[in-house]
């Protein structure tokens, strides 16, 4: 096996970079030419492999950190082409990787020569992550909020594999890989005090080579991307109430062509005369959202109501609400009740809720209810309160794994835990002092 290695050491450039180029190789019927592997100058843990073929072909990149152990691979290219370029993701900093191009079986299954690529170092602005325990198998797409703010991707062992530092002086609360697999989306906003007039959704190429923004004034905590690429975001909506602006919320959709449409307003579902108004936080204070493609419905957490409401996307009708001021679902009397919740997750006839304030004292917790949507009933079936207690007075996230474990993000504490059904913490991640976390988007695979 022929090995090509060319290292360009960093001197004053921001990141160490490595470039490998090979011409004229491949062992199949289709010739692979101009093979090149290049560490991104913007994100030192992303490598772009490019190559040409003499006939239209589809291929992918195999790679691993030990020669001969190509235990990871990018997806096969969907469209046969002569010129190919693939981003290799999930790589750690300052690490050697062996990479090669493999053509699909339909194209003869040819294999290129092996390249050794060394990723660069991390920017010094990123906080150290401390991990204990084992058993995690998820990537985390996490906003860092602190001295350095921006979205990062952390691998299951707690190592950075992607980063982008946001210099807007806004906070970042949610980051998601885009459906098309080409970029990462995040919101840059402010939810502490008045919302920001210059808030925006930001899209960053996975190799960091480009960035685009969608200005949306008064963005709040969360957004989702729908299957067709439409982005729906929570946006603060002020209306006059008793002679003064009162802070309500809306859902604004951004279509793939950029058109922005308000598809729901709290003002159309609820009445402040009936619900009352929080003198400190305004009226509804929506802070988390989800989308159900099967029912074309949004789920929205309204902090000040301590309610999670289901909204028909087409009509904007509020179908029902779980908990709190506007609750229509009957929760059994012996269940604990959540207060000022943030993230939640509906799944398999149950719902998980990150309960910021429902427990006595300064304690946050996770509650799980069985949930019968047709009957409109819910009953608590599980809860988790860490010992010693943790208080996350803002943000916080929960997600259930297939094996029953629960991912809990104690945002203010900069701590993520994977907790078993019997309340054992098997894996934990912590940030340095000075760094909180936004909502946690979990991924089993970084390739879409």
């Amino acid at each position, binding site marked *: 096996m022929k090995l090509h290695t060319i290292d360009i050491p960093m001197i004053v450039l921001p990141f*160490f970079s490595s470039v490998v180029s090979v011409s004229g190789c491949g062992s199949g019927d289709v010739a692979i030419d101009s093979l090149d592997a290049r560490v991104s100058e913007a994100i030192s843990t992303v490598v772009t492999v490019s190559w040409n073929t003499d006939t239209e072909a589809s291929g992918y990149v195999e790679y691993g950190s030990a020669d001969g152990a190509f235990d990871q691979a990018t997806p096969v290219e969907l469209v046969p082409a002569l010129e190919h370029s693939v981003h290799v993701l999930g790589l750690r900093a300052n690490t050697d990787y062996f990479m090669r191009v493999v053509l699909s079986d339909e194209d003869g299954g040819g294999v290129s020569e092996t390249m050794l690529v060394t990723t660069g*170092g991390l*920017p010094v602005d990123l906080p150290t992550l401390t991990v204990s325990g084992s058993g995690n198998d998820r990537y985390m797409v996490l906003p860092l909020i602190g*001295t350095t703010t921006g979205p990062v991707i952390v691998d299951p062992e707690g190592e950075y594999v992607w980063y982008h530092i946001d210099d807007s002086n806004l906070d970042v609360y949610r980051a998601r890989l885009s459906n098309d697999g080409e970029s990462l989306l995040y919101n840059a906003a402010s939810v502490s005090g008045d919302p920001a007039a210059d808030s925006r959704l930001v899209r960053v190429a996975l190799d960091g080579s480009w960035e685009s923004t969608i200005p949306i004034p008064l963005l709040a905590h969360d957004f989702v991307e729908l299957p067709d690429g439409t982005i729906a975001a929570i946006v603060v909506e002020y209306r006059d109430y008793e002679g003064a602006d009162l802070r309500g919320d809306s859902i604004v959709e951004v279509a793939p062509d950029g058109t922005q449409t308000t598809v729901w307003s709290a003002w159309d579902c609820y009445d402040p005369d009936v619900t009352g108004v929080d003198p400190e936080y305004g009226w509804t204070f929506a802070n988390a959202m989800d989308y159900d493609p099967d029912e074309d419905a949004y789920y929205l957490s309204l902090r000040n109501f301590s309610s999670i409401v289901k909204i028909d996307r087409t009509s904007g009708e509020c179908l029902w609400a779980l908990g709190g001021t506007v609750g229509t679902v009957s929760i059994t009397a012996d269940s604990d009740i959540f207060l000022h919740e943030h993230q939640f997750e509906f799944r398999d006839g149950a719902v998980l809720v990150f309960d910021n304030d429902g427990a006595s004292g300064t304690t946050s917790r996770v509650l799980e209810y069985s949930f019968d949507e047709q009957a409109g009933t819910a009953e608590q079936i599980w809860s988790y309160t860490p010992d010693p207690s943790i208080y996350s007075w803002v943000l916080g996230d929960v997600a259930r794994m297939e094996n029953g474990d629960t991912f809990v993000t104690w945002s203010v504490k900069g701590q993520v835990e994977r907790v078993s059904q019997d309340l054992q913490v098997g894996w934990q991640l912590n940030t340095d*002092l000075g760094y909180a976390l936004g909502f946690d988007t979990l991924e089993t695979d970084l390739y879409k």
Partner: protein
Amino acid sequence: MQSSRPRRFTVLHSGSGPARGMCLPTLAGTLLLGSLAACGGDDVECESGTILLQDSNNFNYQGSIDVPSITTASAMDLDICWEQLVSDIQCHDLDPLEDIDNVALIRFPQLSQEDVEYGLSNDSLLQADIDGYVEYPTQGDTCTNLSEFTFFGTVIDVPEQYNEEGGTYLLLLTTGTEVGVGARMLTFLEPTSSSDNTTVDISAGCGVLDFEADLHSMETLPICTDGTWTVDWSELTLDGLGNELESDNIDHVMLGFYEGMTVDDLEAQFLDLELMATTLYELDLEGGSSADLGQASDGTSYFSGFSGDGVWILALQCSRCYNPAPLFLTVLEPAEPAE
């Protein structure tokens, strides 16, 4: 939500550019370190080009942070003043009116004062260690009340959040308002139910930091007086404390010349290395594991070569770490390249 990351090394420049044409190596290097380096490269081969730094080149230090503590009444508003804060934790002069821009109160619910001091010394505090943060942008004041502290516009509820059961409270006074940068003074507040003291006067910071730096035990680094110098720390494994080196934290290179001084002089005034330097060349980094010293600047010109009668040091620093000591520091021994 966030806590602070004291502190950025104060960067000051003094003196003029290095004198030229002097015979090297330095007197200090020769007499105090027993080096055999000499002009003309008789016995020691100097290094240029890419220079691999080794753990054996690193200095040793023992450091502690002894934060003063003030006992106060519990669950009561406090009068907090810093007009007596005329020096910072590095014993550098400070103008309390001009230099203190923000005062923050951080609560550690589970840690003792000793735990917090240890965490500050070793840069091992986690965000999970705190459960409260409020601040007061001074805007020219030198006194305020605890009840004036806020977090993003939310006012502190003093009885609820400042009391004997709340844990350890650390008051942090900073230059600048960026969270985690520019710490000048630290003081514990200790709410105690038996106390009726509602006055907090922050005193001068001399003595908070206690460092003993050993600049003699390391292997000094022979370096050629002329040429190019790319220092590479990829093989370093330990910092000066002997802890595992977090090399990703290195974000600043300092190359200092101390004309007419000895290594003993530097040891004695270790916290003043930036202030004492005759010439200080500096380079901010964004990452990586090497740096071209030719890119380091004294503010007017780039570093171009070693000369002068005195001591040269090279330091790799972490501006965002709590412990202000460099992660790596070595004494350089400039020598003429062998012919």
